[in-house]
């Protein structure tokens, strides 16, 4: 699976979640997921992470987006759509534990 496909899954999952919250907003790869001006609050991020893991599981790809290293990374993988997609790509490719 390439990065574009992963980004699409991440973007659509976030869109779907925001729609459940009656929020309609344009999302691009630079959209922030945490911090100032982020699309999601803390529970929103939790929900999105669960939904993304589940989306990949439906495609027979088992990934866990929680790990000690991820949580302690200087540049959190959860900061933008793009960084999250990159993180997932690394996970799938086995370059990140």
């Amino acid at each position, binding site marked *: 699976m390439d990065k574009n496909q992963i980004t699409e899954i991440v973007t659509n999952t976030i869109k779907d979640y925001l729609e459940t919250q009656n929020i309609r907003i344009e999302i691009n790869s630079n959209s922030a997921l945490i911090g100032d001006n982020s699309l999601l609050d803390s529970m929103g991020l939790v929900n999105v992470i669960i939904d993304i893991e*589940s989306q990949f*599981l439906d495609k027979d790809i088992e990934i866990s987006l929680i790990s000690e290293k991820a949580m302690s990374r200087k540049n959190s993988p959860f900061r933008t759509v793009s960084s999250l997609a990159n993180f997932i790509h690394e996970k799938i490719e086995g370059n990140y534990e």
Partner: protein
Amino acid sequence: MNKIMVITGTSKGIGRYLAEYFLQKNFIVIGCDLSKTNLKHNRYEHFCLDVSDEISVRKMITIIVKKHRKIDYLINNAGIASMNHSLLTPLSVVEKIFKTNFFGTFLFCREIGKVMAKNKFGRIINFSSVAVPLHLEGESIYAASKAAVEEFTRILAKEFGNLGITCNAIGPSPIKTDLIKNISKEKINNLLEQQAIGEFASFDDIVNVIEFFISNKSNMVTGQIIYLSGVC
């Protein structure tokens, strides 16, 4: 549609009893234990694993989700005990007890919590013990691990509250199982004397509390610890 229940520690004792009880109630029961089971039923599935082994637990939950698409109920029953004076307790024993009693509970709550959150419904029941409120001498590590389960349960109830998941715990008083087989009669009698009802509890007493927690009417019951035998 069948209700899907995961119970840990189903090879014997309380876990085995609960598995058989809920199978009779037409649930699909998925159990796990370190050892195999001779429990055979067309609605029972068994996994051999260590509840504190993150990879094994994740694999188990993935298999369940792929097959059943949901998990409605989780009973974190698996637990071990060891009685000893704190000054005579090896660190390896402390680690072993915390791994099974707390880490195992945490892993199952986390992984199954994700599944329940997606379905906006779930009932989690963790296992504490009267050893926590009674502050039993010789059970410092066991009681500490169960105290950790209690606090985890209370905070989980808050974190899961808006996800449609309730999280409660039961604190059984002594029941005649393998868990207490090595404890002297004198110690057990001393413990029973500290209870409002100074008798051994039964498996049915546990079922009664679990039935209350998992009831559809118990939507508003979460973050609670119920002890048997009037311990408080």
